[in-house]
Every structure is written in structure tokens, then in C-alpha cells.
């Protein structure tokens, strides 16, 4: 470092010495961090995946609605289901009587 470098370093440090973060700002930072520390699913999964998850709320609602719809439709009994059920059982009963005879 030459003389100019040393003088520049000293002058910059002297000027910046008076610029300090206020106590209120420090309290705000610590409060924010305290809130951040509260454990949540998003944080846990973000830590697990090592990736910050950012899914919009509307996408979550749409996803849940779709899952519910698919779930319900898979349990709905249609006419076709009843016919195939009856046919299967009639065949079984017929086989049974034939064996008895």
C-alpha cells in the first residue's frame, strides 16, 4: 500500500465510524429472527430439501381440490360397477350349484 492508499483507508474508516446501525434496527432484526425461528412445515421441508419452497397459495388450493375430486370419483359406484359385480357373483353361485349336484 502506498501513501495514497493508506490515507484513503484511514479517511474512509474515520468517516464511516460515525455511521452505526441504530438500536431500534438491531431490536427489529432480532425480533424478526425470533419469529423466523418458530418451526413450521415450510421451513422444515425447505431445510430437508435444501431448497426454499415458494408455492403460491392458489396453486395449493387448486392441488388440494383436485386431489379431493379424484378421491371422491374413485369411490363413486356407477351402474357399470353394479352390473360387473352381479355378473361375477352369478357365475360363482352357478359354479357352486353345479359342484353340489
Amino acid at each position, binding site marked *: 500500500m502506498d501513501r495514497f492508499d493508506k*490515507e484513503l483507508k484511514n479517511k474512509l474508516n474515520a468517516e464511516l465510524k460515525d455511521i452505526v446501525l441504530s438500536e431500534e434496527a438491531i431490536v427489529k*432484526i*432480532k425480533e424478526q*429472527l425470533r419469529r423466523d425461528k418458530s418451526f413450521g412445515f415450510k421451513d422444515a421441508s425447505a431445510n430437508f430439501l435444501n431448497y426454499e419452497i415458494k408455492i403460491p397459495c392458489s396453486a395449493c388450493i387448486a392441488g388440494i381440490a383436485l386431489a379431493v375430486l379424484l378421491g371422491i370419483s374413485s369411490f363413486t359406484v356407477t351402474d357399470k360397477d353394479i352390473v360387473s359385480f352381479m355378473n361375477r357373483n352369478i357365475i360363482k353361485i352357478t359354479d357352486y350349484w353345479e359342484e353340489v349336484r
Partner: protein
Amino acid sequence: MSFDEIIDKYKDAIFRMVYVHIGDFHRSEDITQEIFIRIYRSLSKFRGDSSIYTWIYRISINTIRTYAKKDRTIADTLSVDHMEDIPDDAWDEEKLVEGLQNSSVISLIQRLPDKYKEVLVLYYYQDLKVEDICSVLNEPSGTIKSKLHRGRNMLKEMLLKEGVSNG
């Protein structure tokens, strides 16, 4: 080191770095808060490949870059286009030192383009070596040295134009 200790150790260094880039005291406080939250959230990803301070400064610089363009109250006033590449020994050192004493170095640095401002603050204020600045900015040492040289020359040019005439 607990996170409270990290805050206590780096709060002013980070805040001053933000202030030099942004220029507004209150906005700089908000950005400093954002930096600490980002550091806290990324702490689990820190693997110790670099030293903790270069990692902290890297997060700080990246956050400053995000906000600098929209929040800055000072516009870059200098461009490198008009700069001549003056060799180090061609400057009048006495006049430069006199200029430094008569000027506000912070305001002069604030008028430099961001890429020079970052390097000068890390080198002259944070006292980082060129290799550490390479790690913070993820750039080769040749680029850092060139930015340091150009930034310093721009500062010298401003000092000769303004510092001496103010005195």
C-alpha cells in the same frame, strides 16, 4: 458462534457497506435487516468452503445488488468511457492526499459505478485481500485488480477536480 454474536460482530460493517451503496440511512437499515435474515436462513447451507466473513459479505453484496438499482438515492455520475489509463506514478501524490483531507470520501465513492464501489469498499473498508474479494464476488483476481485500479484512478480524478479546489 451464535447468531446473536454474528449480528454483534458484523452489524456495523454490513450497515456501512449498505450505506455507501444506497445513500439513505433508513433504507440502509431495512436492507441490513434483510441481509441478516438471508444469512440466518442460509446458515444451514454454509459448508465452510470459504471463511464465514467472505460468505457473509457475499450474501450482503448480492442483497445490495438486488436493492441498489431501485433504492439508491445517488446516481452513478462517472463512467469509465472517458477515463485515460494513467500509470500509478504519474499522479501528484501530495495533491491527492490534500484532496482526500478536503473531501468526503464516502460521497466520492458513492458516485462511482457499482462494480468499482463494491471492490473499493471491500478493499479499503472491510480490509479484505484481493483473494478474499475474488471469493466474495466470484470473479478472477485479474478482474478484481483491474476494477481496483480503475476505481482508484476514478477516485483520484475526482479528488483532483473537486478535493483540491474545495480546500
